[in-house]
């Protein structure tokens, strides 16, 4: 438990009060002096803190060190020439890759902003001619990845929680809402003059972090890897001390400073760290940068980071503050970051095109509000939360919080839209070069960034097939490199009959940027695609209630079209499971259809024999048959869907027969055919009608049978609803039959004519709909045939409707109505309207 800090004296502006230090800290402060006499100076910092940067710059100017050591993986020392290159403009980051023994890649980012103390250290060191080196464990070091058991992980969680609870309590005492605001309150919001008093600043930061550190239990420190890292850092500091004359400045996160001090000064409390050195001492520093590269970065990603690289929130705000603090601002026109930020937010919100417009009055009110809040809270100038509070009070006019436009403006302002840059020719992560080489090997034209077109003959050209797989993978990953404009889409299940695949592609700086973003997921395109597929696989909902054969098949096909066919074979198991349990006929039919497409494209995907596809197809049949038996419990509204399903099943059955039992003329004997036969006698009239019609088309039934069936269904005294449904089903499934068979037509005609008038009118809508499945020309022909049957001449007036029930009285009434209407219009001066 840190000693209680009684209310701080705000009038002096954000200075830590005199507190009672625990013994350990008091001794540490003595050790600091000891080390200082030996020429080792510490700069305990918070990552990305402008206040620490100002203090550090002052310290470096005063001490003029010969050596500057920075907390960061050792191999980054080899990237120094790039880091100090004037063409490198923050925000930038060093990206590190490490492939674990299991094949998985882990990635780390070491970001640097203009206001990061580490950046100041690098640049000052370069300017002052000091030797600069990174001294932390290499990214690939196994000691970074400690195996933890459940117990030690749980202690770790408790410790972190307790630490954050303490900070919360402190924050509450100071009327701050969280520990970031507390830090601002106590450290960031000191005046530039106070910040240049680096001894005071670093002293306070040291005490602040050491108090926290002293609470951490040893197993937790080990489990986090802190001990191992501090052990190396201490050793390196000692080595540099031996090798060089002149002051050595050590820039590390303040959490580590206490441990380093105790280890280096030979204190018994530092024994743990010293003894953590491996047998035979630490290995020598890496000889090259290994798998690490300098890349440009942006504020948005900086803000979103957590863990190791995390620092202060809202980099956009601190970027503005830094201009004033670092003295790079024009002294004749010192910009007020508060006013600038508020003006930018107001402009951004007003430009969004909503009715919310923030003008000069609002901005001045908010600025005044921010300054008064700062005064109330004892800040020399408005801090981040003072400005945010001013926005809340002055720009928001109801209880729903900031509007979307304002929210966006806040993000743009506080997170910041800044992007850094690295000089041309900086070595880039291999994914860019590897991908480009692969594209060139496939003879794609990348000489410039113009869009090019390629037409791929998948059936006959093996290289085209390889190209197709590469382009599909690039498109799947969203690199924006390639876009398919035409051709078969096996995943979507469309265009399967097309022979050529058409693609547009272009290698632009955007492509490189997208690949760079992907770099954190893997080092080659195929690796990343595989990892995404695994993600998709997991995302396919595996709860029993949501098994979907269709989704599973889509993932499988996606793997196949990208050339990841070994993975496809593995996914077959997933599909099998889903097939077993998928309750939806539509989903299984879709899955079946896609699998048929896949089987037909087996050669063009270079899948070889792929017995697993045939196996899946064989499994589809019985499942469809089983699910078919659930059809028939529908109401009138479902009829359309049901008949569609029947048609799809029939098609699928045909395809499956061709693939699985080639050589047979007609699909007989399959489980699906048997089920369809059984369904012909279904109590659901629509199904019966559809299947009877289909039977005629297939040749397994005769027209006489169909005619007899129709007569039976449509005779007088029959259930009209049933009859109509039968007719509808039949017309949807096989509309042409009626057109081409005069006997059938006369049967239907006779049945409809003899329907009682009331019932006819009642079922007119459904009857109408039954006939909409015909094409317009067919409808016209049918109409001609019907009128012929009825003995009516279509061109005569027989089809005009005549009313014979009007009487003379009606005429009289009509005349009187017209007269009064004319008079009324004339009164209103609208006589022209009557046309007389």
């Amino acid at each position: 438990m840190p000693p209680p800090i009684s209310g701080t004296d705000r009038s002096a502006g954000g200075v830590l009060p005199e507190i009672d230090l625990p013994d350990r800290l008091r001794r540490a402060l003595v050790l600091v002096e000891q080390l200082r006499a030996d020429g080792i100076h510490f700069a305990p910092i918070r990552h990305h803190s402008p206040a620490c940067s100002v203090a550090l710059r002052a310290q470096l100017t005063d001490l003029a060190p010969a050596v500057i050591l920075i907390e960061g993986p050792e191999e980054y020392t080899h990237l120094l020439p790039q880091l100090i290159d004037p063409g490198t403009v923050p925000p930038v980051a060093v990206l590190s890759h490490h492939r674990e023994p299991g094949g998985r890649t882990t990635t780390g980012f070491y970001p640097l902003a203009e206001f990061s103390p580490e950046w100041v250290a690098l640049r000052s060191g370069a300017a002052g001619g000091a030797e600069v080196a990174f001294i932390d464990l290499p990214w690939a070091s196994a000691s970074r990845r400690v195996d933890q058991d459940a117990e030690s992980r749980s202690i770790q969680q408790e410790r972190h929680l307790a630490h954050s609870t303490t900070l919360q309590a402190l924050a509450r005492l100071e009327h701050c809402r969280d520990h970031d605001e507390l830090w601002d309150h106590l450290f960031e919001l000191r005046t530039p003059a106070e910040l240049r008093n680096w001894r005071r600043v670093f002293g306070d930061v040291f005490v602040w972090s050491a108090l926290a550190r002293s609470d951490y239990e040893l197993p937790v420190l080990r489990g986090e890897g802190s001990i191992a890292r501090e052990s190396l850092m201490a050793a390196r500091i000692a080595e540099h001390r031996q090798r060089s004359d002149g002051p050595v400045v050590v820039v590390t996160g303040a959490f580590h400073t206490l441990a380093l001090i105790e280890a280096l000064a030979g204190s018994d409390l530092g024994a743990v760290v010293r003894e953590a050195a491996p047998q035979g001492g630490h290995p020598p520093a890496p000889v090259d940068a290994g798998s690490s590269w300098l890349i440009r970065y942006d504020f948005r990603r900086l803000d979103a980071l957590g863990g190791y690289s995390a620092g202060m929130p809202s980099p956009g705000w601190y970027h503005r503050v830094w201009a004033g603090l670092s003295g790079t601002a024009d002294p004749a026109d010192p910009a007020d970051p508060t006013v600038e930020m508020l003006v930018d937010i107001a402009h951004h919100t007003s430009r969004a095109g909503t009715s919310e417009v923030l003008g000069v009055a609002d901005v001045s009110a908010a600025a005044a509000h921010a300054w008064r809040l700062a005064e109330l809270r004892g800040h020399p100038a408005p801090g981040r939360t003072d400005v945010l509070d001013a926005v809340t009070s002055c720009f928001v006019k109801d209880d729903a919080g900031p509007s979307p436009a304002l929210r966006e403006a806040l993000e743009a302002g506080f997170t910041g839209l800044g992007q850094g840059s690295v000089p041309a020719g900086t070595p880039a992560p291999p994914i860019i070069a590897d991908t480009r080489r692969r594209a060139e090997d496939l003879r794609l034209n990348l000489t410039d960034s113009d869009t090019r077109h390629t037409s791929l003959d998948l059936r006959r050209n093996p290289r085209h097939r390889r190209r197709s797989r590469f382009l599909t993978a690039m498109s799947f990953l969203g690199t924006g490199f390639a876009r398919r404009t035409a051709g078969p889409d096996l995943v979507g299940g469309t265009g399967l009959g097309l022979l050529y695949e058409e693609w547009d592609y272009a290698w632009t700086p955007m492509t490189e940027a997208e690949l760079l973003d992907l770099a954190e997921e893997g080092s080659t395109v195929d690796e990343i695609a595989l990892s995404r597929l695994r993600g998709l696989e997991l995302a396919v909902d595996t709860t029993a209630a949501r098994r979907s054969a269709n989704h599973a098949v889509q993932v499988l096909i996606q793997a196949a079209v990208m050339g990841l066919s070994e993975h496809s074979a593995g996914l077959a198991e997933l599909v099998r499971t889903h097939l077993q349990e998928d309750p939806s006929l539509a989903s299984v039919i879709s899955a079946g259809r896609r699998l048929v497409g896949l089987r037909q494209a087996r050669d063009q995907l270079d899948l070889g024999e792929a017995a697993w596809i045939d196996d899946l197809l064989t499994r589809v049949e019985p499942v469809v048959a089983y699910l078919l038996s659930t059809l028939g419990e529908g109401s009138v509204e479902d009829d359309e869907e049901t008949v569609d399903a029947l048609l799809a099943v029939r098609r699928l059955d045909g395809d499956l027969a061709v693939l699985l039992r080639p050589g047979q003329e007609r699909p007989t004997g399959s489980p699906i055919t048997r089920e369809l036969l059984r369904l012909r006698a279904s109590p659901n009239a629509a199904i019966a009608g559809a299947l009877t019609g289909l039977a005629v088309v297939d040749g397994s039934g005769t027209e006489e049978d169909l005619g007899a069936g129709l007569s039976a269904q449509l005779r007088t005294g029959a259930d009209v609803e049933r009859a109509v449904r039968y007719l509808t089903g039949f017309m949807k499934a096989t509309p042409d039959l009626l057109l081409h068979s005069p006997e059938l037509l006369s049967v239907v005609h006779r049945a409809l004519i003899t329907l009682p008038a009331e019932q006819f009118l009642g079922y007119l809508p459904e009857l109408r709909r039954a006939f909409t499945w015909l094409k317009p020309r067919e409808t016209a022909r049918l109409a001609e045939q019907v009128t012929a049957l009825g003995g009516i001449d279509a061109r005569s007036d027989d089809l005009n409707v005549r009313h014979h029930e009007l009487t003379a009285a009606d005429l009289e009434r009509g005349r009187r109505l017209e007269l009064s209407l004319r008079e009324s219009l004339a009164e209103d001066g609208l006589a022209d309207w009557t046309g007389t």
Partner: protein
Amino acid sequence: MVSTDEIRRPAEDRFAAELTSLADADGRAGNDRPPGWLLSPRAVRAFVLGDAELGVSRKFYGDDPLVDRAIVSLLGRQGLMLVGEPGTAKSMLSELLAAAVSGDTGLTIQGTAGTTEDHIRYSWNYALLLAEGPSDRSLVPSPLHQALVGGKIVRFEEITRCAPEIQDNLVSILSDKQLMIPEFGPNARVPARPGFNIIATANLRDRGVNEMSAALKRRFNFETVRPITDHAFEVELVSGQLTEELGERGEEVEVPREVIRLLVTAFQELRSGVTAGGTPVKSPETVMSTAEAVNVAFAAALEARYLGNGVVSAAEIARQISGVALKDNPEDARRLRFYVDNIVRERARTDPLWKDFFRAAADLWH
């Protein structure tokens, strides 16, 4: 004999000692006071949020930055508008700020659908008006008028319950910081003295409230007062309020802390729609505010005192929740039953306190 005791004395009386002590501290430290204010802004903040050294109690929980922003708003040209759900202590905060800044919480316009212009501007003693014509004697000043003249804070409670045309009376008064009185002759006006400002409260989503015009909204800084989410705070608050309400009767009944904690837990879970463990529960439509929780506790205490054994148990809480917390919506009864059946039943297995609650609730609703 009619008692002259009041049920509830104004804040400046109840906390007179604290206000004096804060004013003295201001004097000793030489703090600047804004014109018309009785205390410095920091002292006002200390009055609301507490200051252990000066013996000032904390009166508002859960959102310190809100209080900062409110104080700063009052320093400026905008008015302060406190919005939020019922029972979130908007009126209480308004009262505290008025007491600290102006020492007078009595300049209050109580907004209703029947509020007229006269309540906001001024009206007349008609007998005197007829006898003397318009004069200072015949004019009956509204609280707003008095605040302008005296350089004090005027409080306008439930402003959105007034008709929009009535609300808009404020628009030009607040921009010009003066009130025109044409009856007194040409250019007769009442200018605002330093220290004048307005604190309005509104519930923007209730039935029976009107829209505020955009012109009026622009004259105010809006601050949303949210329900308390910190469990410990709310327990503190409920205990404190309960003690105050019980007054002398507090001696006669014992309210164990765990029972209050159970009450606050139930309220927070029903309010937020999710339990501490992450299980979703159905949130009743009626607002489960802290004020309601205090009412439940108070009713439970009374039940224990007069109908029980003098110690409040979870059973009394269960019985009173249905009466106090559920208003007219029958759906809410079902939602509460869901909570009892699923969450409370589970807890009742291991925790004797929840078991008492469950048994009493089960009796009521099954």
